[in-house]
């Protein structure tokens, strides 16, 4: 029997990027919040710069994520096998602890990809097997919240389009219009990012420094970045990374209105006979508890969001919560990571130093920033050249004509390991109708619960985009001085830290799971936060959009608390 706890106003499941952000506006408004977090709290010692511990073993995911790795297959008739690779972590702050901190606003186009494509290129430009939908939230709706997040957690960058000011070519001239400048300047440029910015200018392109959730200056009593170089897959030992555990969460806790229960694994969202959420059942130290609440926020990352909804079956929700129309798990999307490498013989690039959010970017071929007529694909990609190339990557990035081991390999890396640079793009996938998440019929986690099964492929749209971008990436590197370029083919990365869809937002309950406020259509006191709500992807990293949407949902809940709780 679960121990029944005292009722609270709001319970948040998962204190990561989304949940950790939502907590702050709620706490400031006076709501009493319980945060249930499967992981614990970390200290700088845990963030030792050890590639094996973090990049290879995903030690920070040991509480839970590593035990429930989804299975993967490429078509609905296939048999799914355990996914390869590491993804999310557990802890107060969630994956905002070990993320790279590239912190983007999406482009206005990304919120209306369907209608913009039809308007400009006709309905036939959308592939037939794609369920593309506009977002019920537009860039202008989210702009105030992007701005809140940037100020609140501290984002470094250079604006390219400020309202009433016009374009500034030192920033991204393709970005949506912003109300003001970033709260602090971009991260330092390095020799490598300068080299690539100069090459882009030679080509008449528009390079700009990528925005970063890492402090370029002391900000709100946190120190500026030291550029020590073990940021991705690892937490920041100085707190210069704007993870929610250093920003919104401690601020929310300081109000006295947020209490976090660590090592608490939510197992079910409970509902009453009318179908409304009544609270959350969780397990801590082998004991089961029931935490009643007026409002429930689910923010456990895409896979666990879908799993918890599907596992929370009841008389009112026989197929799982939000799933009356078989929509939970649908329209799954992910980024394919694609690099073109270049060799700069004799040049010491020193890319091992610094941080991955220290980068030169190009937005000219992202979104609909260029004419797609006759190209055979829609959407685009942001190109980037960045720092933080760790030793293991230095030693293993070799061109196809060099052996992969032995004396010849060794001589090559000795001569060239510090002379390899790359141009990178995150290839967005379309919401193909067959790509989805569901409960795996055979594979279980360590508690005997089914893990998520991912059905995912990419198609012609993605391949054509890559074919279009590759020559540009090669030209960029060659103009910068590369004498040789090479790349692997693009491949689908089903299991992904940029995983989208599964609880799509939309106006129509028959084709989506949550409404424009991220509240579940048939459970109005349950919100879902994460990339799982995105109806389409962009090429940009998702977290600042997750955080802005979370801020907006939290404000909605505080403003309409009585109506929401019912």
């Amino acid at each position, binding site marked *: 029997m679960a121990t029944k706890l005292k009722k609270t106003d709001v319970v948040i499941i998962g204190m990561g990027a989304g949940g950790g952000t939502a907590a702050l506006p709620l706490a400031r408004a006076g709501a009493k919040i319980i945060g249930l977090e499967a992981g614990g*709290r*970390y*200290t*700088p*010692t845990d*963030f*030792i*710069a*050890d*590639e*094996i511990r973090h990049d*290879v*073993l995903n030690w920070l995911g040991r509480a839970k994520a590593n035990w429930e790795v989804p299975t993967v297959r490429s078509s609905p008739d296939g048999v799914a096998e355990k996914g390869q690779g590491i993804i999310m972590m557990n802890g107060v702050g969630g994956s905002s602890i070990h993320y790279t901190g590239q912190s983007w606003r999406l482009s206005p186009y990304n919120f209306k990809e369907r209608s913009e494509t039809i308007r400009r290129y006709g309905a036939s430009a959308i592939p037939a097997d794609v369920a593309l939908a506009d977002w019920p939230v537009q860039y202008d709706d989210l702009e105030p919240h992007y701005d809140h997040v940037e100020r609140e957690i501290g984002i470094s960058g250079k604006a390219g389009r400020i309202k009433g000011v016009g374009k500034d070519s030192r920033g991204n001239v393709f970005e949506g219009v912003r109300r003001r400048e970033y709260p602090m300047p971009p991260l*330092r440029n*390095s*020799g*490598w990012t*300068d*080299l690539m910015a100069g090459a882009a200018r030679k080509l008449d392109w528009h390079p700009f420094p990528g925005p970063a959730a890492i402090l370029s200056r002391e900000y709100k*009593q*946190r*120190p500026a970045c*030291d*550029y*020590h*170089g*073990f940021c991705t897959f690892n937490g920041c*030992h*100085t*707190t210069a990374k704007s993870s929610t*555990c*250093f920003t919104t969460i*401690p601020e929310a806790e300081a109000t006295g209105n947020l209490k976090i229960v660590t090592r608490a694994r939510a197992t079910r969202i409970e509902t009453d006979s009318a179908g409304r959420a009544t609270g959350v059942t969780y397990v801590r130290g082998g004991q089961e508890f029931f935490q009643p609440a007026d409002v429930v926020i689910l923010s456990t990352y895409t896979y666990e969001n879908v799993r918890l909804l599907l596992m929370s079956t009841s008389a009112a929700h026989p197929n799982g919560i939000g799933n009356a129309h078989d929509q939970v798990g649908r329209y799954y999307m992910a980024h394919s990571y694609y690099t073109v490498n270049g060799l700069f013989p004799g*040049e*010491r*690039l*020193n890319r*091992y*130093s*610094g941080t991955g959010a220290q980068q030169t970017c190009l937005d000219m071929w992202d979104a609909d920033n260029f004419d797609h007529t006759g190209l055979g694909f829609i959407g685009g990609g942001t190109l980037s050249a960045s*720092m933080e190339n760790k*030793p*293991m990557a*230095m*030693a*293993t990035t070799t061109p196809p004509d060099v052996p*992969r*081991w*032995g*004396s010849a390999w*060794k*001589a090559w*890396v*000795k001569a060239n*390991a*510090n002379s390899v640079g790359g141009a990178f793009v995150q290839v967005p996938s379309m919401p193909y109708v067959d790509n989805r998440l569901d409960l795996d019929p055979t594979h279980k986690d360590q508690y005997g619960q089914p893990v998520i099964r991912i059905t995912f492929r990419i198609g012609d749209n993605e391949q054509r985009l890559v074919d279009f971008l590759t020559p540009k990436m090669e030209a960029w590197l060659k103009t910068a001085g590369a004498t040789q370029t090479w790349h692997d083919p693009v491949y689908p990365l089903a299991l992904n830290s940029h995983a989208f869809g599964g609880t799509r937002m939309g106006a129509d309950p028959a084709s989506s799971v949550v409404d424009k406020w991220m509240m579940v259509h048939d459970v109005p006191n349950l919100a879902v936060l994460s990339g799982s709500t995105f109806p389409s992807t962009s090429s940009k990293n998702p977290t600042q959009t997750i955080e802005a949407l979370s801020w907006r949902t939290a404000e909605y809940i505080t403003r309409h608390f009585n109506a929401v709780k019912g």
Partner: protein
Amino acid sequence: MEAKESDEGPRTGLRRRDLLRRAGAFGALVAVPAGLVAAPAVAAEERGEVRALAATEAGTLNAVLNRLIPSDASGPGATEAQVARYIDRALAGPFSDAAPAYAAGLAALDDYAAAQYGAAFAALPPATQDLVLGDLEAKRATGFVPDSSAFFEMVRMHALQGMFSDPVRGGNAKFAGWDLIGYPGIRMDYSAHDQRLGVKLKPAHHSAADFNIFNPKHGA
């Protein structure tokens, strides 16, 4: 804590008050300067006994590693870097799931070498050993489950990890791997000048474990 407050100041421009603030952001943490532990990591390198592999298996593995990352004109290889020690510790610890695949794969390797080239792998001349490894890589060698390239890729991946990961893991002894690729070793910061093109940094030869802030004995 060996490092004094004044040791920390010039390094990162932090004052004690700032350190305490940082510590506050981590919850109940004690402020820890990022300086060096008194004794460097060399002592840790001297430890390390064979744990997961039988002696003959370890002998075959050593011979393989010696060809994957040979000691040659480019400098020290897997032997000097103690890559085998890295793998052995990993198999006794976090990679214990892979231990059976090593035992089976190393046995299959010796069988294949004997059948095709007339001797156990370690007894073959280096050029022949390279032929055998080429057969494995190309999936041509028989007797492996599921196939020889799966075994080859696993060993190659672990060998690279052992050569280029932090010495705290048992490999990369005397920073042989990092010196090979021109990676200077763990540092707590890089200046704007350090990040310019062409700048050659003196090898710092530090493991992450050399820093107080990453050392559990000092850090928490």
